[in-house]
């Protein structure tokens, strides 16, 4: 049977570092137990962080939606006083806000998935910790009696693997959260400065394409408003 390679190697190297440090499985068990408690704290912090980021993006989404609504009102006013140019400007801003809202929606969904995943990790880890606490002393006693060495090693490696896995899960969730936070901060900044239409970024082609998309969306909105104000 073929065996685990790369991904396994990551786990293995972390595992062997723990194993190298302590040769006595009894110490490893105690160490692992403490480490797991620490990890559980980290997971809980991670969940809180993700939830906070999500909340923040949701607030931003609400703000953008509100601005979009206001812009539509302005466009309507402009149109009824015969200033189509101003109406067009307002609608352009509105469309670009709507694009931003769509992006936020997908990020909120992504954070939500991340949160669910971490909650699952937390549940699993809590159960393992509870079991480990119950088994730890028994395993240690067995080891002392030198009759269950295989079993002990199996447990220890299993625990270490779990540790490495959860550690990696948290690390990835943290990285994702950091990315979202950076994005949220950038959005805050732009909202404050009032630069609402120019945060699509991307290369020239992207900008050009989004301009085309925006202008056709603006025309559609204008036509709709015209129909309503007639």
């Amino acid at each position, binding site marked *: *049977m*073929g*065996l*685990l*390679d*790369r*991904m*396994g190697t990551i*786990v293995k190297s972390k595992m062997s570092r723990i194993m190298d440090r302590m040769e006595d499985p009894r110490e490893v068990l105690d160490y692992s137990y403490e480490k797991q408690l620490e990890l559980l704290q980290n997971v809980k912090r991670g969940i809180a962080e993700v939830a906070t980021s999500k909340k923040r993006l949701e607030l931003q989404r609400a703000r953008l939606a509100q601005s979009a609504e206001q812009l539509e009102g302005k466009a309507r006013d402009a149109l009824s006083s015969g200033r189509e140019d101003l109406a067009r400007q307002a609608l352009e801003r509105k469309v670009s806000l709507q694009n931003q809202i769509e992006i936020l929606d997908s990020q909120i969904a992504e954070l939500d998935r991340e949160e669910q*995943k971490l909650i*699952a*990790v937390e*549940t*699993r880890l809590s*159960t*393992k910790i*509870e*079991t*480990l606490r119950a*088994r730890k002393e028994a395993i240690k006693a067995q080891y002392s009696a030198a009759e269950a060495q295989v079993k002990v090693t*199996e*447990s220890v*490696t*299993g*625990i270490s*693997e*779990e540790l490495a*896995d*959860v550690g*990696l*899960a948290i690390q*990835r969730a943290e990285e994702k959260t950091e990315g979202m936070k950076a994005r949220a901060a950038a959005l805050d900044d732009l909202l404050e400065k009032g630069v609402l239409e120019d945060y699509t970024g991307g290369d020239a082609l992207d900008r050009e394409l989004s301009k085309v998309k925006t202008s056709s969306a603006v025309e559609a909105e204008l036509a709709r408003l015209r129909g309503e104000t007639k």
Partner: protein
Amino acid sequence: MIIRIMGEGQYRAPDTIIEDLNAIDNRIVELVEKGDREGFRNELLRMVSLVRERCEPLDATEIVKSDLILPPPDLTFEEARGIFRGQGLIED
């Protein structure tokens, strides 16, 4: 055998599953080499769902070592470049 899906948990798998996993693993190595992101994503999801469908989840209270460790389903293409190389996850 015991299979772990990183970040998700462990499964008790029939030994026969290794052949199917191996086939997907080889395809992923090829796709990663070719730079085919979409193909890679599809195959990775297939690999993970194969385990989810054909294997029995291990009780969270069991503490055992895995025989095979699969990467998380949301592995990025960049991360995959570092993992799916040469012989892939499973050596032939």
